[in-house]
C-alpha cells in the first residue's frame, strides 16, 4: 500500500561520508541514517540505538568501514538506522552471513544485531559456531524474552510457565541462560548489560569493540508491548540497587546497599551470593574477566536463575584467542610465501601433461 521507507539508500547528505583520513572527527550524525525509526513507542530498542549512535564515533572507524548484519525480528531493524553498510538477512542467519563478511574482509568492523529468538532459537547453531571460531564480529543480542515481531510468542529465554499466544496454558521449556550458553560455546568475550543504563551499556560496548575476535553481548531489552517490565528488578529505581551485581575487574564483587552482599567462593566449586559480613575477605570473589579458564565466568552466570533476582552485569569474560579471519589471512600469506603466488597457467599444467604437436601426433612424453 505504502512505501514503508527504511532500508536501501542513504540520502545525499550522508553521501560523502567522512572519508578515511587519519584524524576523523565523527559524530553521532555520521552514523544515523535518514530512515524513520519504527519501533513501538516506548520500546527499549530506541535506548540502545541512541546509546550506540552516541558511542560509536569514539571508535574512530569511518562509517563506510562498518558493516551491520541483522536477522529478522524487531531488533533486525537496527541495520536500517545505521548509516553504514548493512545486510538485513534472514531469520537466524546473521552470524553466518557476518562470518563471511568478517572472514573475507578482516579490515572491516562487523556487527551483528539479533534478538533472543533470532540468535538462540533458529540461529542457535550459527551463534555457537561463530563463538567457538572467534570470528571478528561483535554480536549484540537484544534479549526481551519474547518474540516481538511475530507478536508475542515465548522465546528460548522466556521463563517457564509463560503464558503467550502460543502457550495459553503456559510454556513448558526451561530457558537458556545466554551468558552460560556462550561460555559453553567457547566464547572469548561475553558480557551482559541493560537497555536503559546508558553508561553501563556504553562501557560494555566499548570493551566489546576493543576485543579482538568475537564478542557476545546480551542486552536486556524491554518489550513494552508483549513483555513489559521483564527486567524491572534490574532497572526499577527501587529494585536495581538490590539486584544489579556489577562486575569490575580486580575488584571483589559486592553489591546491594553499602555492598552488604557479595559473591562468595564456595568449596563445592560454585560461586554463591552471600552476606559480605559473613564472608571471609579471601573468599569474596575478585573478578577477572581475563582469566584463561571460563569456569569463574560460568559460575557468575549461574548465581541466580534469571533477571528477576540478583544478576551479574558487565564483562564476564574477555580473553585473547587467535581471530578466525586473521588466521585465514595468515594461512593464505604463508601458502603464498611457500608456493608462490598462484599462477593459473602453472596450475593447469601441474601434474601429468602431454603435448600433441601440429600433426595431431602426441609427443609422447609427460611433463610433470
Amino acid at each position, binding site marked *: *500500500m*505504502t*512505501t*514503508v*521507507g*527504511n*532500508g*536501501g*539508500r*542513504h*540520502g*545525499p547528505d550522508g*553521501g560523502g561520508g567522512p572519508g578515511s583520513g587519519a584524524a576523523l572527527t565523527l559524530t553521532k550524525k555520521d552514523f544515523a*541514517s535518514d*530512515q524513520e525509526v519504527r519501533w513501538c513507542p516506548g520500546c527499549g530498542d530506541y535506548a540502545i540505538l541512541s546509546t550506540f549512535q552516541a558511542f560509536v564515533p569514539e571508535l574512530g572507524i569511518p562509517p*563506510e*568501514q562498518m*558493516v551491520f548484519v541483522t536477522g*529478522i525480528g524487531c531488533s533486525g531493524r537496527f*541495520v*536500517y538506522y545505521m548509516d*553504514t*553498510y548493512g*545486510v*538485513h538477512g*534472514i531469520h537466524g*542467519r546473521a552470524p*553466518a*552471513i*557476518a*562470518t*563471511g*563478511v568478517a*572472514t*573475507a574482509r578482516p*579490515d*572491516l568492523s562487523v556487527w551483528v544485531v539479533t534478538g533472543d529468538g533470532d540468535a538462540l532459537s533458529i540461529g542457535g*547453531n*550459527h551463534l555457537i*559456531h561463530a563463538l567457538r571460531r572467534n570470528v571478528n564480529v561483535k554480536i549484540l543480542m537484544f534479549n526481551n524474552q519474547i518474540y516481538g515481531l511475530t507478536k508475542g510468542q515465548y522465546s528460548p529465554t522466556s521463563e517457564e510457565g509463560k503464558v503467550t499466544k502460543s502457550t495459553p496454558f503456559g510454556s513448558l521449556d526451561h530457558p537458556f541462560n545466554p551468558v552460560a550458553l556462550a561460555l559453553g560455546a567457547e566464547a572469548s568475550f561475553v558480557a551482559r548489560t541493560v537497555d536503559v543504563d546508558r553508561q553501563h551499556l556504553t562501557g560494555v560496548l566499548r570493551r566489546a569493540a576493543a576485543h579482538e575476535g568475537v564478542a557476545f553481548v546480551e542486552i536486556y531489552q524491554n518489550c513494552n508491548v508483549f513483555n513489559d517490565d521483564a527486567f524491572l528488578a534490574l532497572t526499577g529505581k527501587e529494585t536495581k540497587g538490590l539486584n544489579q551485581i556489577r562486575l569490575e575487574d580486580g575488584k571483589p564483587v559486592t553489591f546491594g546497599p553499602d555492598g552488604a552482599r557479595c559473591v562468595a567462593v564456595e568449596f563445592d566449586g560454585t560461586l554463591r551470593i552471600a552476606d559480605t559480613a559473613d564472608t571471609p575477605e579471601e573468599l569474596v570473589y575478585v573478578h577477572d574477566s581475563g582469566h584463561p579458564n571460563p569456569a569463574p565466568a560460568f559460575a557468575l552466570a549461574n548465581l541466580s536463575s534469571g533477571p528477576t533476582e540478583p544478576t551479574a552485569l558487565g564483562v564476564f569474560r574477555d580473553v585473547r584467542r587467535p581471530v578466525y579471519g586473521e588466521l585465514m589471512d595468515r594461512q*593464505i600469506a*604463508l*601458502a*603464498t610465501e611457500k*608456493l608462490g603466488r*598462484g599462477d*593459473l597457467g602453472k*596450475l*593447469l599444467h601441474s601434474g*601429468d601433461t*602431454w*603435448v*600433441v*604437436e601440429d*600433426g*595431431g*601426433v*602426441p609427443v*609422447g612424453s*609427460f611433463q610433470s
Partner: protein
Amino acid sequence: MPTKTVEQKERVVVRFAGDSGDGMQLTGDRFTNATAVLGNDLATLPDFPAEIRAPAGTLAGVSAFQIHFASQDIVTPGDAPNVLIAMNPAALQTNLRDLEPNGTLIVNEDAFVDRNLEKAGYSTNPLDDGSLGGYRVYRVPMTSITVRATEGMGLTKKEAERSKNMFALGLLSWMYSRPTDVTTKWVEKKFNRKPDILRANLAAFRAGYNFGETTELFAHTYEVKPAPALPGTYRNIAGSTALAWGLVAASVRSGLPIFYSSYPITPASELLHELSRHKNFAVRTLQAEDEIAAIGAALGASFAGQLGVTGTSGPGLDLKQETISLAVALELPLIVVDVQRAGPSTGMPTKTEAADLLAALYGRHGESPLPVVAASTPANCFDTALEAARIAVKYRTPVILLSDTFLGNSSEPWRLPDVDGLPEIDPHFATQVNHDDGFMPYLRDENLARPWAVPGTPGLRHRIGGLEKEDVTGNISYEAENHERMTKLRAAKVAKIADDIPLLEVDDETGDAELLVLGWGSTFGAIRGSVRRTRRSGRKVAHAHLTHLNPWPRNIEGVLRRYRRVLIPEMNTGQLAMLVRARFLLDAESYTKVQGQPILAADMDEQITRRLTS
C-alpha cells in the same frame, strides 16, 4: 620366446576390479596416463565402494576403475568392458555381469581360495565350475609371481603382495602396447624416499610385462592407434578438479578472491578438498557448521566484495534454498554448485542422478528466478564454472551450477586452454554515487543489473535485505505495484541473459535428421557417442545439448521445431521434458533412467534405433 601377433583395435574398454586395499584406482590412473601419452583419446570412471573400509575380500569392499580408450574421438568411459581384470572373487562377482559376451577376463588365480570365495558368495570356484564358459578366461597367479619377483628385496610377504597391482598394470601395459617409461618414471618419483618399495614396484611391473611377453597364455597384443587431436598440451582431468579449477580461473580472470564456503557431503566434498589446496590463489575455504551457514557466509563474502561460492549435493541444496532466495532479493553474485546424487532423502549417496533440475529452478518459495547452468563433460566443468561466475558477476545474481556424481568422478583428456584467452570478468564495482539523490542500490544498468558497492567504499553506504524493495532506491516497500514491478524486473534480468549466451548448436551433419536428441548435463557423452554411431548405421538423428538451463538460448524453439521428433533423455523422471513441453507445447518425448547409474551410449542406441525404425 614365442612371437606374438599384434592386432589393431579401434577402441577398448578395460576395467580393473579388486579389493579396496588392492590399489585399483592407482593402477587405473597409471594405465590412463600411459594411454594418454600414447595419444589415444580416452575417458575414465572410477567406482568406489560405498563402505569406508569394508572387510577385505567382501563384496562391499570392491573398488573398480574403468577406462575407455580409442583411436577416435570418444566421449564416454564406455558401457560394457571388453576386458575385466578381477583381483579376487568378490571383484569377479560384482563386475562380471557387465563384461561383454565373449569378453576377456583376467583373474588373479591366487586369490580364488575358499575363504575369499565364501566372502564373495560363491559356493563353488567359478574358475573351475564351468560358469565362466562365455568368456575368454586367463588365470594368472599374480600374487605368487609378484612375491617371487620381489624376493630378496627385504620386504615382508605382505608388503611384497601389495605390489600385485603393479603386476597387473605391467601385464595390461604389455597387452595393449602401452609405453613403460611413463610408469617407471612415476614409480621412481613417487617412492624415491622408500627404495625398498620402489624396487618392489618396479620388479612387479616388469614381471607383469614380461609375463605377457613370455607366457603362452596370451597369443597376441593389441595396438590402439593414436587418436587425431588438436595440437596443444593435454592433461587428464576429472570433473570435480575441473570445476574447482574453473572457479580458480574465474578468480584470476576477475580479480575477485574466491570465498568457498561449504559443508562436506558426498560427492561435493571433492570441491572443498581441491579448493582448500589453493590458498596461494587467495582462495578462502570455510568448512561451515552446516549448509545454511555455508551459503550464508558465501553470501556475506559476496556482499563484502569477494566471489562467494558454495557447493553441495541434493540434501544440502534443499537446506540452502531459503538463503538462495535471499540472494535473489539482494541481487548479489553467488555461485551454488550442486553435484547431484541419487535421491530422494539420503538416497544413494555414491550414485549418480540428475533430478535436481526443477529444485534448482523452482525449489524456493515465492517467485525467485535465477540462472541455472549445467556441465556436460569432465573438462566442460571448467568452462561451466567460469560461465557461472561470469553470469553471477555481470548480472549480480546467484547462479546454480549443476554437476553430478558421474561427471565429478569421471575424467577425460583436456586440451589446456590458453590462460589469457579465457573470458575476462569485470566485477565493475560501484565507486560513484549514481543518482542526484544519492546512491541508489537498485538503479539498474543496461543489463538490469544493480550496482555492487562494497563496504569500504566512501559515499556508497547502503542497507539491503530480504524484504521487498522499492525499485531504484532499495527502500523497503509494501506497495502493490512496486512488488509486481520488482517481481517482473527480477525475472526480466534473468531472462535477458539469453542475449548474452551462445546459441544452441546442433550436431546434425547432413542436416536431414528426423529425430533430435536434446540433452543436458552428464548425458552428453552417451548421447554424442550414440548419435554418431547410430548415424553411421543410417539413423537420421541429431544432437543438441543445453548448458544454459535458464534462460535457454534464444534459438532453442527454432531448433526444436526443425525436427519431426524430439527425444529428451534424462537421469530423472523427465524434468527438462516437462519444461520444454510447457514452453513450446511441443510433444517432446522423454527417456528416463533413474538407477543411480549414468545413461549409457548403449541405452541411447536402443532409444534412437527404436524411434527411427518403428
